[in-house]
């Protein structure tokens, strides 16, 4: 739930850029839980029309970083600024394991989220975009885990937010569902949306991400396109990049 925004965060639209040029800029983000430092002086920019993937081992602060970008968590130090046109919903969000009230159908669920924005959502089109049109009238409790994830993706796009944050959209999905989830992200980026996604599926990240941020020990230990990172680490795949950055095994594959 929201309360008065911290001075260190601003998700209010700043109309200094044309429509379709929405971005999130994080500057010197540091976050600590008590004495434990999770993120240290991170700078990054989430740009429109691109899929920016955040990868890294468990417990390195990926979800914390995403929550800070979303404005759900105030960083100990640093700022996050949304720059772009005014939007009903500047930043969309897919949590790691999305779930919805089981008493409602898929279509009703999307209609509810649209109603929060005062919008009448075309639920058929929204569900069709994620391949769930045939399940529109099925109660959430009757959807499989993968279908719920797709419904979550559809929810994250309600209101056409210019920036969307996806936390592990492919986690626990079969290969075809995982690919489908990333295809939707890429399609959305192609329409000009700024996409941030955290994932452990490095094959899909390599295939679909335009930029990759490798988070390790609370810092961004590597950044660039998959190709740039592979060239930089003299490796042949993003998995090898990950291995090189996280474990220091450079160019040995």
């Amino acid at each position: 739930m929201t309360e008065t925004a911290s001075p260190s965060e601003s998700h209010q639209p700043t109309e200094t850029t044309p429509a379709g040029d929405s971005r999130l800029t994080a500057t010197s983000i540091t976050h600590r839980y008590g004495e434990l430092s999770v993120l240290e002086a991170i700078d990054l920019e989430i740009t429109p029309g691109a899929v920016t993937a955040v990868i890294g081992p468990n417990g390195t602060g990926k979800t914390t970083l995403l929550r800070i970008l979303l404005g759900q968590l105030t960083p100990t130090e640093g700022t996050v600024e949304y720059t772009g046109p005014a939007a009903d919903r500047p930043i969309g969000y897919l949590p790691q394991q999305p779930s919805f009230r089981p008493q409602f159908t898929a279509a009703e669920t999307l209609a509810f989220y649209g109603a929060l924005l005062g919008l009448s959502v075309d639920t058929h089109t929204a569900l069709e975009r994620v391949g769930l049109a045939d399940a529109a009238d099925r109660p959430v409790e009757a959807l499989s885990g993968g279908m719920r994830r797709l419904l979550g993706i559809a929810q994250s796009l309600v209101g056409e937010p210019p920036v969307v944050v996806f936390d592990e959209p492919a986690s626990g999905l079969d290969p075809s569902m995982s690919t489908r989830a990333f295809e939707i992200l890429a399609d959305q980026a192609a329409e000009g949306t700024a996409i941030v996604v955290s994932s452990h599926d490095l094959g899909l990240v390599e295939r679909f991400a335009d930029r990759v941020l490798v988070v390790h020990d609370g810092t961004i230990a590597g950044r660039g396109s998959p190709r740039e990172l592979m060239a930089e680490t003299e490796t042949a795949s993003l998995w090898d990049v990950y291995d090189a950055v996280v474990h220091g095994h450079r160019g040995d594959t």
Partner: protein
Amino acid sequence: MSSARTQFRALFVRELQTVVRTRVYLLVALGVWALVVALVATGGGGESGYLPAVVDLLLPLELLVPAVAIAVGYRSVVADLERGELAVLESYDVPAWVYVAAIYAGRAIALSAILVGGLLITAVLIAVSASPDTGIYATHTGVDSPVLFGRFIALTVLYGLTMLGLVVLVSVVARSTRTALALAAGGVVLVVAGGDALVILGLTEEWLSAESLFGSLATVPNSAYRGLVFETVVGVASGVETGYAAARWSALGLVGWLVGSLMLAVGLLGRRQR
């Protein structure tokens, strides 16, 4: 940007639909209605009139109403937290007060329907079965009347809404539905039984004076409810002042618990993820 009213309406409608579509609430309602009717039937008050029925129901309702409030409200917020929907709602810029107000309003209607339904069924049964004539509308003290029973229903609903406010607060505090259930049950027992016990202890230990008794009782929800019923229902018909409670302070006590619980719930929810 969507207005708070738009967001409230969407959340409120969802809450009502959730309650209507959840069978367990229907079972709770049927159980409560059957229990209320059984209490009056077995207590014998129903055969004598509305006020004897009130006397039969008062003590059981002091315990039953909080139990129903727990059943209706303990999952209200924590279930959204467990599903991750609270985090999603944040991306729709829903203020904490709008969320809490809508959740509370939806559940309050469900709780009120359950309580009013059971007591109205009882009232109808009394009207058709009691003797002497219970069809008299009291215009002065000393006469049994359905109007007084209506007042009893209103006070019971107020008591229920107060307890629901506490349960919603607990649902905000809890991190899982299991914890919410335990906290709600423990919290309500603490407030209901502990409050009375504390007042008695205060009087015997003399850190509460006899003059402050009414004020102290008014701060305990079930004592306030009991006092209001005695003062404004039973006392009216008996024709003499009961001297049991301060009605105004008791009403303020209930409203204070309600408003305080909801304000605290809003504050905690707003700060929870920061």
